[in-house]
């Protein structure tokens, strides 16, 4: 309806050109502050960062800065630490996002039906999201510390550990520390977005289905999931990208150790930039990560598009 009204208005457009110009520029004026910020603080540094990948940029070396072509990428292709980090990133992202999503979805389903005290329960279970990630990381590192934390003693009591040790310094299991912290911290994000999507499903659909004698699982499969699918696709996509870039917990909890067992690409970039002060190399790694993530995102978007077209 508004389309035809628009067209009608355009045909009868007798406004003076200044007024028309003002009207046409209006949305741009509204978006200008946000756009300027994004372009200046994100897009320009992104382009500069890409150029760094082909230059020799070391913060403490005044003679650096020259163009060196693909040298960083050659080094990178032989950098064992990078391949370890890449493998760790897959493991870290896959496990974190999968567990966050599954537990987040269950939580959203639990919170979707009204019960007494829902408001307070919802506020409490969402609270980890508000905990600053560095603090969450420290907090979990402390919980895993046998000196002041209960977890090693519990694991020992259950017979899962031969002695109450710190899993963060155990090369074989160290990655589970940050993953558990990340799951704890990230469940609320999925629960919030999925709960919002659940609450927008028209209730009469469920009523009709249960009059028809559909079981809980049938209703979930044929009403809830299709309605949630777009939200699931977009949140899983965003989350995967965020989590694979998310170095805070690892930097705080293990610093990439022991023996690089928890070093992911994001924390490796940060180490190169912050500790080695080798900005050029850091940017080269980041560029590779960017390309991988863009490829992944495109793949998911195409997949979603295909599914939507089919449906």
């Amino acid at each position, binding site marked *: 309806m508004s389309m035809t009204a628009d067209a009608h208005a355009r045909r009868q457009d007798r406004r003076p050109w200044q007024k028309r110009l003002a009207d046409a520029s209006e949305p741009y004026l509204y978006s200008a502050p946000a756009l300027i910020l*994004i372009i200046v603080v994100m897009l320009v540094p992104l382009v500069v960062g890409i150029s760094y990948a082909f230059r020799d940029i070391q913060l403490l070396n005044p003679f650096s800065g020259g163009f060196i072509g693909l040298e960083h990428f050659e080094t990178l292709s032989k950098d064992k630490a990078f391949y370890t980090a890449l493998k760790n990133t897959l493991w870290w992202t896959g496990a974190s996002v999968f567990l966050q999503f599954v537990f987040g979805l269950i939580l959203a389903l639990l919170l979707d039906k009204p019960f007494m005290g829902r408001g307070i329960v919802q506020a409490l279970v969402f609270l980890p999201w508000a905990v*600053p990630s560095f603090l969450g990381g420290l907090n979990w590192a402390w919980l895993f510390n046998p000196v*002041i934390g209960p977890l090693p003693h519990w694991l020992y009591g259950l017979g899962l550990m031969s002695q109450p040790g710190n899993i963060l310094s155990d090369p074989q299991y160290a990655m589970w520390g940050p993953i558990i912290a990340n799951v704890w911290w990230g469940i609320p994000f999925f629960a919030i977005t999925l709960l919002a999507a659940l609450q927008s499903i028209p209730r009469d659909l469920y009523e009709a289905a249960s009059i028809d004698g559909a079981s809980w699982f049938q209703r979930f499969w044929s009403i809830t999931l299709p309605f949630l699918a777009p939200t699931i696709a977009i949140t899983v996509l965003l989350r995967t990208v965020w989590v694979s870039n998310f170095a805070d917990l690892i930097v705080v909890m293990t610093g990439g150790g022991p023996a690089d067992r928890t070093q992911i690409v994001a924390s490796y970039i940060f180490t190169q*930039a912050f500790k080695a002060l080798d900005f050029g190399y850091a940017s080269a790694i980041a560029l590779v990560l960017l390309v991988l993530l863009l490829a992944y995102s495109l793949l998911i978007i195409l997949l979603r598009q295909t599914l939507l077209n089919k449906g």
Partner: protein
Amino acid sequence: MKTSLLPTVAHRLALLAYVIFALFPLFWLLKVSVTPNSLLYSEGVRMWPSQTTWEHYAFVLQHSAFPTFFKNSLIVSGSTAVIVTICASLSGYALSRFHFRAKYWIVALMLLTQMFPLVMLVAPIFKILTPLGLTNSLTGLIVVYTAFNVPFATFLMQSFFDAIPKDLEEAAIIDGATKFMAFREIILPLTLPGIAATLGFVFTAAWSELLFALMLINGNNAATFPVGLLTFVSKFSVDFGQMMAAGILALIPAALFFLLIQRYLVQGLTAGAVKG
């Protein structure tokens, strides 16, 4: 419809498990922060110490740089939240109410910023901000955080605007108001929950940011909480009581903000989802 007891009990138990999982780490933080040093190791695994003390809090507040960190974090997060919310209200309104040529490019640009690794910007931003004198300064942090948070906040605000019927401002415009007047006088007041949600969301995000704070700030004067707490961890002899007391103090503002706004966050996203 008969309601059997078993599913209800299972439902409540499952929620109880979630609540325990969510709160236990925070509870432990609190527990260690009030445990006297003499009991820290001997009662390390007890659920609650036999004696409690506030001495760690007193020390952190009186003898460390934490009041400065607290003030810095408050300035940075507060300013970021306000500036982002203003920018995002405007851009969110533009995306919600106007059809214009660049709209899809703007949306694509904002989505793109969510995809690329922010760690990639660490080095260039450092290089760009240094000659401007914006490293080691709170202003620099505010500028960077504002830009990082604007895209998501824009989408959030857009979904709140989408939930408000267009007839309202159309009626006002027929009555002779300009579009901006309609926006300011009619639409904004109706979006107050959305504004609260955005403010809270951005405040918490800025309060937690670690990597850029570490990179752009050195020295205590401009350090925010994350940097302060990390230097505390690495520099001092490990005093767990004091660290956890500092942790609890760092948690309070973000948690308070979040408890107030989480309801609106769900509402806002629901409203946006209806439109699809």
